């Protein structure tokens, strides 16, 4: 009974591998942000934290046996010349949904990546300003300077 | 008489008139122009209140709604007999106090008098607002406005002592109103769905006896301006204010607002029959009599004249609460009448205290030996005032005490009668010695110059007027008596 349990748990984990990975990544990022006291390490933790969410979203979108969401049309050379009506005609053949993974998560994650970069940029700008005023990026040293006034 | 209601904007105008006067008071260049604005506002307000008197006397009611905020509850005014009685007293005495404060302030050359007169006007409009409010929300609004408008008046001298007494003043009044009155009001609104002052109370049938008692006590202690015993110590502390403030506000406006709101709540919200049925009235009477006795005893031990008057005010206010707590017709009439009678009596005493301070700078009773020789008019007025407060025949106070005693007899509770009589005796004990020392003792130490030195005319004339009024009220109490009687009948479900 013991090994069948192991199989079922193992199979379960394998089937949901992507969620397990993203949770581990997220916890690593969260850990770094909260516990580390070097500001740059916290910023790195933050970007890991955001990338974990990106991985989660992208993994939602994929389907077994499907290819990237770009419609494969056998554009024969003369077909490209006809322009519009060819496109309309081409749309008539039914597009099999199972062939393509669903594009929505990818669109969302393009935005999330951009937001991640923007936040990283602003965080680094702030870190530089903190370094210029306090001469250090270690949070406990900064607190010491603040307390000593 | 038919209960016809007239819808007119007069009550709202009466409230607004002194607020409108404020920009003029601020912008007036010279002191005289400023004083004339205050007088104009006082006269217009008194005229507006008087104009509604005949209608109210034959049973009519004036209503006006400003705006509807909550379902069937908004800022609205309703002038009935009880409201008219209190508004009449407040607006008439404002005129007299304006004269007095001009004399007092100019004589002592107080600083920032413009601010004084502005906040005085705001306080008055709040008082009239409370008198004319149709529901508990409007009354709470003007009650809060009054407490905030009187804070700068109480702390006028802006010194250390004024600061600590101001802090105590706010602690009791604002703390009481937010801590007790606000939740009580909201709980009542939750149970009954309406806060309008109907003749016979809204709580009947919606509330169990336990919650009714708790709510009544929360209202009693919430409206801390009535100075019931545990919530009273702001009043002696507020004596640090200049005397016209103590005279009008702490003898007439502020404390009477407290008493008025408590009576309004007892009759309009809790309802007289509920008071009787769950015998909440007796609980209220016990608290009131406790306050009367203890306050009178403390008053005897006070050496400062104004502090003694303050404690006597606490005792007199509890008469009003006692009157309502008796739940009998004449008891109610006596209580409500006492608002008017005590007002005239006590304001005279405060005017005299102020006059003595103006003329000689004396504050303590022990130094007032033989002052009668030098300030005969002031001291005779003081004598008449104290007679009225004690409740002896030639002065108006006697009539309200008379109805109160009748009330206790109707209610058949002998202990309350004993309380009334002993307290009258105690009043005599702490007032008459002052008068005796003033006239019959000789001024043994020669630090006083013997020649007659009366306080400035502006101070003497008002206190003479008010002392004469309290005597007139004994012989012709009609307007106030009728109003009180009408109010009592409506409240008792007549």
């Amino acid at each position, binding site marked *: 009974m013991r090994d069948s349990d192991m199989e079922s748990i193992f199979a379960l984990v394998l089937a949901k591998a992507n969620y397990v990975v993203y949770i581990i990544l*997220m916890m690593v990022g969260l*850990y770094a942000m*909260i516990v580390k006291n070097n500001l740059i390490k916290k910023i790195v933790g933050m970007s890991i934290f955001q990338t974990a969410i990106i991985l989660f979203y992208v993994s939602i979108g994929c389907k077994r046996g499907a290819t990237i969401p770009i419609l494969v049309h056998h554009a024969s050379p003369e077909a490209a010349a006809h322009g519009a009506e060819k496109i309309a005609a081409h749309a008539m053949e039914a597009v099999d949904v199972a062939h393509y993974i669903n594009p929505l998560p990818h*669109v969302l994650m393009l935005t999330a990546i*951009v937001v991640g970069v923007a936040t990283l*940029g602003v965080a680094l700008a702030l870190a530089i300003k903190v370094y210029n005023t306090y001469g250090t990026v270690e949070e406990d040293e900064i607190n010491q300077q603040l307390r000593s006034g | 008489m038919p209960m016809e209601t007239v819808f007119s904007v007069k009550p709202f105008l009466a409230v607004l008139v002194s607020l409108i006067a404020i920009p003029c008071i601020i912008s007036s260049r010279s002191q005289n122009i400023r004083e004339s604005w205050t007088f104009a506002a006082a006269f217009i307000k008194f005229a507006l209140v008087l104009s509604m008197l005949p209608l109210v006397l034959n049973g009519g009611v004036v209503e006006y709604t400003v705006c509807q905020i909550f379902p069937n509850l908004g800022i609205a005014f309703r002038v009935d007999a009880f409201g008219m009685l209190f508004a009449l007293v407040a607006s008439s005495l404002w005129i007299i106090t304006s004269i007095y404060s001009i004399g007092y302030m100019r004589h002592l050359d107080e600083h920032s008098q413009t601010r004084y007169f502005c906040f005085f006007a705001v306080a008055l409009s709040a008082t009239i607002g409370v008198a004319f409010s149709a529901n508990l929300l409007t009354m709470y609004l003007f009650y809060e406005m009054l407490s905030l408008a009187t804070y700068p008046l109480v702390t006028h001298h802006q010194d250390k002592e004024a600061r600590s007494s101001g802090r105590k003043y706010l602690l009791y009044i604002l703390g009481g109103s937010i801590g007790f009155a606000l939740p009580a009001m909201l709980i009542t609104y939750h149970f009954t769905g309406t806060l309008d002052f109907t003749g016979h109370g809204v709580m009947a049938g919606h509330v169990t006896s336990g919650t009714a008692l708790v709510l009544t006590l929360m209202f009693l202690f919430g409206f801390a301006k009535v100075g019931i015993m545990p919530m009273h110590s702001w009043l002696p502390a507020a004596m640090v204010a200049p005397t016209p403030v103590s005279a009008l506000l702490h003898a007439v406006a502020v404390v009477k607002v407290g008493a008025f709101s408590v009576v309004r709540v007892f009759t309009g919200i809790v309802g007289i029959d509920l008071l009787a049925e769950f015998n909440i009235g007796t609980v209220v009477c016990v608290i009131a009599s406790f306050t009367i006795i203890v306050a009178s005893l403390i008053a005897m031990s006070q050496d400062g004249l104004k502090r003694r008057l303050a404690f006597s005010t606490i005792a007199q206010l509890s008469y009003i609460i006692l009157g309502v707590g008796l739940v009998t017709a004449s008891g109610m009439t006596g209580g409500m009448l006492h608002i008017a009678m005590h007002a005239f009596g006590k304001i005279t005493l405060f005017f005299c205290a102020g006059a003595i301070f103006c003329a000689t700078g004396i504050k303590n009773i022990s130094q007032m030996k033989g002052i009668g020789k030098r300030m005969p008019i002031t001291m005779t007025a003081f004598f008449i005032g104290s007679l009225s407060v004690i409740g002896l025949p030639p002065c108006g106070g006697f009539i309200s005490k008379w109805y109160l005693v009748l009330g206790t007899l109707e209610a058949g509770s002998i202990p309350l009668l004993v309380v009334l009589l002993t307290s009258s005796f105690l009043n005599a004990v702490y007032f008459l010695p002052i008068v005796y020392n003033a006239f019959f003792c000789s001024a043994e130490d020669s630090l006083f110059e013997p020649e007659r030195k009366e306080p400035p005319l502006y101070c003497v004339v008002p206190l003479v007027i008010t002392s004469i009024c309290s005597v007139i009220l004994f012989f012709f109490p009609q307007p106030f008596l009728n109003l009180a009687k009408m109010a009592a009948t409506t409240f008792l479900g007549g």
Partner: protein
Amino acid sequence: MKILGKLTILLCGVLLLVFTMEFPDWGDPDSPASTHLSPYFIQHTMEDTAVPNIVTSVLADYRGYDTLFETTVILTAGLACFLLLRIERKKVHHRYYRHEPTGVTLRMEGDKFPRNSAVFQRMDANWVPYDFVISRTCRLIIPFIQIFALYVVAHGHHSPGGGFQGGVLMGASVILFAISHSLRAAIKSFSEKTAALLSVTGVFIYAGTGALCLIFGEVFLNYSALAPLFGSDRVMARSHGILMVEIGVAVAVTAVMIWIYYNLSSAGKQDEGL
């Protein structure tokens, strides 16, 4: 305080793990996400926007409003770095020069400075030795990077790519130039003012096309309203609209990446970078 942090993270992780049991398996085709909205996009993108790359069509057309604000996020980041770091450059009265043959470094005061000659070479305070190999190879590669970036932008319709990716590549090429040579050289060729104004114009191109559709009477960002402008039918107009928008995004992203690099690397003084 630290243990509290660790505890919350542990708890949070375990809670998350417990809840994953109810998720659909990885990649199974009939999970709600794959059966509800995406099939519409996959089937209708050709007939709606005539753009085979579904991601670009969803990105720039179906959810074009999202991407408009995404580009605004980039612009906000650029403005934020500028606002936080940029310090007005005080007149600098000294420069460092390196005498090439002898390797002696000189610090020259005053206002007049010798022109850069073969013998005397200007250098930064924390001088990075001028490496011939790197600068020459970079000078060789940069044009190809830029061409590839333009290709990525242009081919967003048919192959993976688009405004963001192309913009970043273009930005990277300029940053490579700044790193390989020196920040001053890069600023001379692509000044901060042009970077700021370009980033604004990029977003303006995007928002402008959207507003143009408004002016043409359609709803905001509905490119088929621009059919008379492009002289094509409504579906092709959408495809051209997407291309215009992609160009706007590329311009904005390039400029902002460079702008942020200028500010971050020189901590706002814009004189000596990495």
